[in-house]
């Protein structure tokens, strides 16, 4: 359980985090999402205790980070961005060192190290120098170190950064497994990662919480424009015009444009068209298909694209930036 209440932090005149509050419960994966410079890392550093907030309070697994810093830090497993490690040590040596820092007795350290080496599939690399390991393995050593003391709270900063696609998939499933009986805060700017792994999204921009909810809630709560993609065939000599004309005759549409990318078989009469509709418009697939059929167009694809987390994210961040600019009068 992580409880963050109204924390703020400034670096000189720059207000990096402004009165941020949120809670994350056990068994949940919360994604902290935001562009670079939004205050994500500062927020994470305040939770993990590297930085002290100027105002506000944080409690981790029941311990106040300000009043009982060492206790609170003992509850957190933290994987910093880019997993900094001592290059001269081996993974086994590093894990042993971390175990000592967490005050674990020798036998317990050994057992715990075996457990996390197994869990993060580090077996073949355990006796190599960390400096000689690939980025993917170093990331796993960092994750193994974060899991060593079996913490109830995990904070992972860009955990799939620099991994190849198959490693990313493995790491994601590991994260899902780990979250079952833990509280997990995942900091990232990779949107598909959030949509696939997180139960909950906290969007941060310009140091503020811009949105907080499940990915589905967020996209539904603030719907953007609807988009439809249509591929249809006309007389090859007529080109895309008849399709555009047919669709423009429909009501409730915002705009109809040929897509930037046309199909490879455009020469045989196929063309791709993008239709945008207002957020409150009903589902337009039926009217579109009907109009196309009436006009004798042969349709092979008709897709409705819902608002994605990405477009929501871009919109929220832009709004926050405008607001901040207006406040500072620049």
């Amino acid at each position: 359980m992580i409880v963050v209440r109204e924390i703020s932090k400034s670096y000189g005149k720059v207000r990096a985090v402004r009165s941020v509050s949120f809670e994350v419960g056990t068994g949940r994966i919360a994604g902290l999402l935001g562009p670079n410079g939004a205050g994500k890392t500062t927020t994470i550093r305040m939770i993990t205790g590297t930085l002290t907030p100027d105002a506000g309070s944080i409690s981790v697994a029941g311990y106040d980070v300000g009043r009982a810093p060492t206790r609170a830090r003992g509850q957190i497993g933290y994987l910093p961005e880019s997993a900094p490690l001592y290059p001269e040590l081996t993974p086994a040596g590093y894990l042993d060192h971390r175990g000592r820092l967490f005050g674990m007795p020798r036998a317990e350290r050994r057992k715990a190290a075996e457990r996390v080496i197994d869990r993060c599939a580090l077996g073949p690399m355990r006796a190599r120098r960390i400096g000689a390991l690939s980025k993917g393995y170093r990331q796993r050593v960092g994750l193994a170190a974060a899991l060593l003391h079996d913490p109830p709270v995990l904070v992972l900063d860009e955990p799939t950064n620099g991994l190849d696609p198959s490693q990313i998939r493995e790491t994601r499933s590991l994260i899902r497994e780990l979250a079952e009986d833990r509280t997990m805060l995942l900091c990232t700017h990779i949107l598909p990662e959030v949509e696939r792994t997180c139960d909950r999204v906290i969007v941060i921009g310009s140091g503020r919480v811009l949105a907080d909810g499940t990915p589905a809630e967020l996209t539904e709560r603030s719907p953007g424009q609807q988009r439809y993609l249509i591929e249809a065939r006309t007389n090859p000599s007529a080109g895309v015009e008849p399709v555009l004309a047919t669709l423009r005759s429909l009501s409730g549409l915002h705009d109809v444009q040929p897509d930037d990318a046309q199909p490879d078989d455009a020469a045989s009469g196929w063309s791709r068209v993008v239709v945008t509709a207002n957020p409150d418009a009903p589902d337009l697939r039926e009217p579109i298909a009907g109009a196309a059929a009436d006009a004798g167009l042969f349709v092979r694809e008709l897709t409705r694209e819902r608002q994605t987390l990405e477009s929501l994210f871009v919109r929220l961040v832009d709004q926050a930036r405008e607001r901040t600019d207006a406040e500072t009068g620049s």
Partner: protein
Amino acid sequence: MKRVLAIAARELDGLFRLPVGWIVAGVVFVGETLTPGQPATMRYFFVVGTWMLVPVAPAISMRLLSEEFRSGTIEPLMTAPVGDVAVVWGKYLGAVAFLLLMLAPTLVFVVVIWGASDRMPDLGPIVGGYLGLVLVGMVYLAVGTLTSTLTSSQTLSFLGTLIVLVLALLLSELALARVGPDLAAVLVELSIPARMRAFAKGVVDLRDVVALASASVLLVTVAAVSLESRRWR
């Protein structure tokens, strides 16, 4: 305390895994040699040692925290349940342990003197001298620990410590000869070479021991405050 030792052990281990540690140890052994034809005493050895350690101590201490800042490993360290005071003391004690191990081979000179002289050498100045040299080295390393909490550059940390030590030693030595007796009395109290000369004579004054030891403790404490202040920045 166990956590302090864990940090010290890693630091010591790191120094032996890096070429800089071996180079420094070699320089000390070669530089701190005995001169043939001189009286069978180590007094000269200890006085030279005071100056010898001026470049050596910063070379040991420069990476203590600077390297952690540069590589980012300070973050896992500061998020472990270890206080900043323990982190700094662990680092410092690791460096002191390295200093002790580095001075250990010079004990061979004691054996040489023993063999070369007809009479049993006077052990007082030797024991006193080593005690003094270690205490002085500890002050130097404490200065180095403090500067390494101030920068993420090992070069800056090295140069900063070197400049502070050279200035402190030179000023106290040069000024001593040029000021009136009142000021000289104060300067002698602050002068590291003056204390070292006493140790090398075999005069172990508790005041000297306390003065050097408390200078180290004070500097390491300031270093801990400096590290902690990073949490507020």
